[in-house]
């Protein structure tokens, strides 16, 4: 019983972190259909900006977070018009893979050059240190904060994509860009805004997740499989799906480590196969939010 409770608490906490760092990919991959393997790189850039802002300029955590998101969006927007715009669309999936891997390499090498290969940290404020008790378990305060942030993000995205014309236009533009344009939808602007949303979320995840996925140059590549797993299980483009997937994977992974730690990795991927076997389209096929 206590084990179960432990698995649930730790699993949910881990799952929410997975969600917050993957949801940006769900936006670009699922909604824009761009296989953006540079997602990890953008998250990393966000993390580094926050780390730098906090350590060199002494910005408080919240300030560093905001600066990181804004700067990352600003820094990556030119990439949208210079690079990504040329490879939108289903026919270009393989080009997207190649281009974004190339971009990732460049970012990894630049970060390595500028900041060196050692680990970087974003100091936590007093408020987020320590632990909060949940019955017999306790979880780090920071994780509790991430869970709340994740829930807020989830609801915000749901509202944006489901309740606003923006969401409808975006999905139309992705479904059939030529027809959407013929209806007067300004697809280019829409894509740019969505791209910004995706990178902003990536940066947010990079900062909030840094306690678990520490910042170092190879961050950009190291965790991409994890992000992809969340999006695939959730069903590309589904924000609620991503959340459900992140929780499911978080709990699965935690259970594996609790119960059969020596085969943890094995357990995780076997579970992944089973889930995808049962839900080949992901949990929330065809639903946006």
């Amino acid at each position, binding site marked *: 019983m206590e084990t179960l409770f432990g698995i649930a608490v730790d699993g949910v906490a881990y799952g929410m972190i997975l969600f917050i760092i993957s949801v940006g990919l769900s936006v670009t*991959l699922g909604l824009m259909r761009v296989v953006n393997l540079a997602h990890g790189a953008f998250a990393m850039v966000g993390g580094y900006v926050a780390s730098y802002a906090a350590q060199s300029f002494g910005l408080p955590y919240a300030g560093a977070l905001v600066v990181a998101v804004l700067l990352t969006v600003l820094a990556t927007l030119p990439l949208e018009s210079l*690079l990504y715009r*040329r*490879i939108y669309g289903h026919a270009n*999936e*393989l*080009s997207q*893979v*190649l*281009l974004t*891997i*190339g*971009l*990732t*390499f*460049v*970012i*990894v*090498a*630049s970060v*390595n*050059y500028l900041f060196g290969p050692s680990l970087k940290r974003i100091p936590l404020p007093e408020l987020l240190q320590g632990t909060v008790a949940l019955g017999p378990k306790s979880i780090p305060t920071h994780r509790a904060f991430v869970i709340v942030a994740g829930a807020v993000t989830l609801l915000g995205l749901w509202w944006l994509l489901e309740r606003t014309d923006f969401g409808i236009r975006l999905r139309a533009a992705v479904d059939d860009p030529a027809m959407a344009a013929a209806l007067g939808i300004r697809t280019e602007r829409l894509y740019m805004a969505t791209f910004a949303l995706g990178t902003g979320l990536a940066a947010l995840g990079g900062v909030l997740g840094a306690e678990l996925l520490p910042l170092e140059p190879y961050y950009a*590549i190291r965790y991409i*499989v994890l992000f*992809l*797993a969340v*999006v*695939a*299980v959730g069903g*590309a483009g589904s924000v609620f799906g991503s959340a459900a997937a992140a929780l499911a994977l978080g709990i699965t992974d935690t259970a594996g480590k609790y119960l059969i730690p020596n*085969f943890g*990795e*094995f357990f995780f*991927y*076997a579970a*992944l*196969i089973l889930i*995808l*076997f049962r839900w*080949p*389209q*992901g949990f929330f096929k065809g639903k946006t939010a």
Partner: protein
Amino acid sequence: MTDAPPTAPTATDPSAPRLASPRRDLSWTAAPLVGLLGLAGFWVFPDDLGLMTRIAAAALYVLSLDLVLGYCGIATLGQAAMFGTGAYAAGIAAVHLVNDPLILLAIGGVAGGAIALATGALILHARGLTLLMLTIAVTQIVQEVANKARDWTGGSDGLSGIDPAPVFGLFRFDMVGRTSYLFALAVLVVGMLVARRIVRSPFGLACRGVKEDPVRVAALGGSPRAYLVTMYAVAGMFAGVAGALTAVSSGIVGLDSVSFSWSAEALVMLVLGGTGRLYGAVIGTVAFMAAHHILAATDPFHWMAFIGLFLMGVVLFLPGGIAAGLERLRDRLTGTRNGSAPGGRA
């Protein structure tokens, strides 16, 4: 001699867009050309045989990916599962059983094909991102098994002690790598010929159909799944042979040969070269590995930035990969209007 389909001469509307006519289809020259260039390389770069051997084996591996991706539309990040299984099977056989290199290749091929058949039957109902994820998961599991089975595979320390006998009992594997290289080159050329044969067969045609629209193939009475699984297994054999070739020529097998990154590298090399033409796989492999080698040799610390720029440059300026760019160049030179579409005939 070409084995292009003899087309009945038909009155064609000159304004209709056309494929390059079969007479101009020079793709049959690819395999012999690779053989010749490879031999030339043997004389021109006698000090780089180690690298060139790796390129040849990798090219065969990337070729196997082209069979599934370029001709069946199966996007996979799990080709290393087949490669690594082939490599380990050959390596284990070499340590415990036999050491004839050709037999080892055969063992690698069978092992690669078998794992592809088993896993393909399990996962090929899915498409797109789901399939991509499933292939990744399979690879991770295979890697985990290899890691756990330390007694057989050496785990993370690698499986060493592979000491293959001379090829045909005549040519010893020397340190400079002459035998290794020529052996690998020969295997690659044979692999290209066989692969070309397969993609131009009725089976290959059916696979291209599945790539475009499985439902339509079913409406013609075919079973898309059966084609996919078969091609996956065939490609698995190619990858297995490539793995065995690497094991034989390097004498060691590591966990990297079943890694995600090796799978991803195959995809990068293939897309770089151009999918759906077989020789694109070879071009991509040579370009990537040579660029990697040269850049890493010039600047072992920051080469990643340059190779990244290289990849981005190819996407932006050579859409469809290097092979597509070459074809456009050729078409411009020969005045043909339309090059063959990617995913077209090999």
